[in-house]
């Protein structure tokens, strides 16, 4: 071990204590029963329990809907922000982060109150609204970053070769900005699956998400089942990340949240 690599020691200890060890504990808890004996009971319980499975399905469905909604709103927003002609100042970009300076829980509570005041019944619509509101910046930023850094000469070259403005977007700008979209999807989709606070406040717990049942189990000291559910979610995160990693490999560097 040379001298330099010793500098990495604090990070290594941190990783072991706060990443590896908790993960290991989750795995151990998932495969043991309350008495500490090895068992598959937690996993079989999940896959045989209709309620859990349907909550899981609803979570995925809501997450997909939210992600699509975020792309639909976020892409045009990012495009406008990155266009120097439409948005000559960088101040507008800061305006998009401003809401994030306020705690997400407070924002969600405030949103719920607004719906109550307006007499709008809480339900799936309000849930999607709240989620989209909370996660939209995470979609806008990576896309904005990629579009902002994109060499303008690509669009010019396309025009030069006979592409109309619409064709320039479809054939050049959009494909080249996909890495940003994938980053955005990653940052919106997974948190949406696991969130529980938003669904609690914005649907009065009428709609339960996967995150909600994990939280309920842990709160009720059902550590083993809660851990098993967490593990299932981890596996999904892992799979999506791998899928995304394969997608953006070799492409222009994807956008990262600043």
């Amino acid at each position: 071990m040379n001298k330099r690599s010793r500098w990495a020691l604090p990070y290594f200890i941190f990783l072991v204590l706060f990443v590896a060890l908790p993960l290991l504990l989750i795995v151990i808890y998932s495969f043991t029963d309350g008495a500490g004996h090895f068992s598959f009971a937690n996993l079989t319980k999940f896959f045989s329990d209709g309620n859990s499975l349907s909550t899981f399905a609803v979570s995925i469905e809501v997450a997909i809907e939210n992600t699509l909604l975020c792309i639909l709103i976020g892409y045009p927003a990012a495009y406008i922000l990155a266009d120097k002609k439409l948005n000559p100042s960088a101040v507008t970009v800061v305006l998009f982060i401003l809401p994030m300076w306020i705690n997400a829980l407070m924002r969600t509570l405030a949103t719920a109150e607004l719906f109550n005041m307006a007499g709008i019944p809480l339900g799936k619509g309000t849930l999607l609204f709240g989620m989209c509101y909370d996660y939209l910046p995470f979609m806008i930023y990576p896309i904005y970053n990629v579009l902002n850094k994109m060499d303008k000469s690509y669009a010019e070259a396309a025009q030069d070769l006979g592409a109309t403005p619409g064709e320039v977007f479809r054939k050049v700008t959009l494909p080249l900005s996909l890495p940003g979209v994938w980053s955005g999807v990653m940052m919106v989709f997974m948190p949406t699956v696991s969130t529980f606070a938003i669904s609690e406040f914005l649907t009065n717990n009428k709609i339960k998400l996967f995150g909600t049942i994990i939280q309920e189990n842990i709160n009720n000291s059902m550590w083993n089942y809660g851990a098993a559910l967490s593990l299932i979610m981890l596996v999904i995160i892992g799979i999506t990340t791998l899928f995304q990693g394969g997608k953006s490999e070799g492409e222009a560097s994807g956008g990262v949240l600043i």
Partner: protein
Amino acid sequence: MPGKETIINIEGLSQFYGEKQVLHDINLYVRRGEFITLLGPSGCGKTTLLRLIAGFLQPTEGRILLDGKDISVLPPHKRPLNTVFQRYALFPHLDVYDNVAFGLKLAGVPEDEIQKRVKKMLKLVSMSDYESRNVDSLSGGQQQRVAIARALVNRPKVLLLDEPLSALDLKMRKDMQIELKEMHKKLGITFIYVTHDQEEALTLSDTIVVMNEGRIQQIGTPIDIYNEPVNAFVADFIGESNILKGRMMRDYRVAFIKHEFDCVDAGFGEDVTVDVVVRPEDIYFTNDPAKCQFKATVNSCTFKGVHYEMWVDTDTGYELMIQDYDPYPVGSEVMLYIDPDDIQVMKKERRANTYPAKVLGEGKVEFLDTEFSCDTSGFAEGEEVMATIRFEKVDLLDHEEEADLTGNVVFILYMGDHYHLTVKTETGENIWVDTNDIWDKGDFVGIKILPKDIKLSKPVAGNE
């Protein structure tokens, strides 16, 4: 002479970026099949002119005609022109084949014809084996070839090239120059080429357009431009040269470096100050006292590969650059002569700084947006006058205190025994300065003019 044989006519083209005028009334025609080069230092407006032709910019004034039709209002995708970009701008999400096929697919050319044309074009640029390669995996030279193929495959009426070789190393650049020239000959397409590299321009072009500060300085064949530069800027920018103050004694007789020479120029008048250009390879050494026109001492001698570059001090106190195949030892006294043919006499663009001025009051005058003191006797308050300051009477300071105004050195010309500087003031006006001090291009300087050196005169009718 615009007419049938011209493909592009540019008429009265001016371009502003906000307040700043980057092109001044450009008039230019391009002959069909010609290889024309826009040459100039960075910021001279050559790229702006190319972008106007391509359609990425809309001209503020003037028109661009292609085959007699005004195209200046058309968006780039409707112009039958294609561009090779400086940084190639190959689409990173497409492979080599799809990059080249991009324009043809948009034009709706049938698939089998696209395939034929793309393959043929890739063969022309020697990239046949790279069809399915990712463009990021190609070297700079290979990317350049693909970029050229991508533009040429559309059979444009005119190919625009924006410093296409500037990112390549010297050897590769030389090879590509030869290939470009061959491609041009083979295809017969008109090429408009932008570069700041004078050697490249001389090698490639049928016609060179030398530009500076948004204006065309000279248009001509490489040989004309090299042998007969019209002004000191062109002489200095193209190749190496000795630029000197001279005096036309009479037709065919010119004096400079305090010696008189026969020359081939006439029509300047008698006893008129001029600028003289002598290329360093046109000053010859001789052992024959009868041939010798002047003597000099060798000051330095550097081997440059093919030739030696020597600086000599003449017996009259001027410094000249000479290029010769044989070296002469430093310190040795040599005899020199210049052929009449090799002396290029140019009309002096200006003899002194002159500015329109306004008398503010007794002893006070305003020009260059600055107030100066000077002798105003004979002029009334509020009168419009001309202020004249000789080049050598302008003092440059390296600080702002005591200075009347400030500016940046934008152009430096060595005149054999002094420097002739162009200083751009903060309001964008030029002040020309003769000085023995050494300044660098870009230096921020204070400008000081003494009251006794400002001469006022009545404005001449018709002169601004």
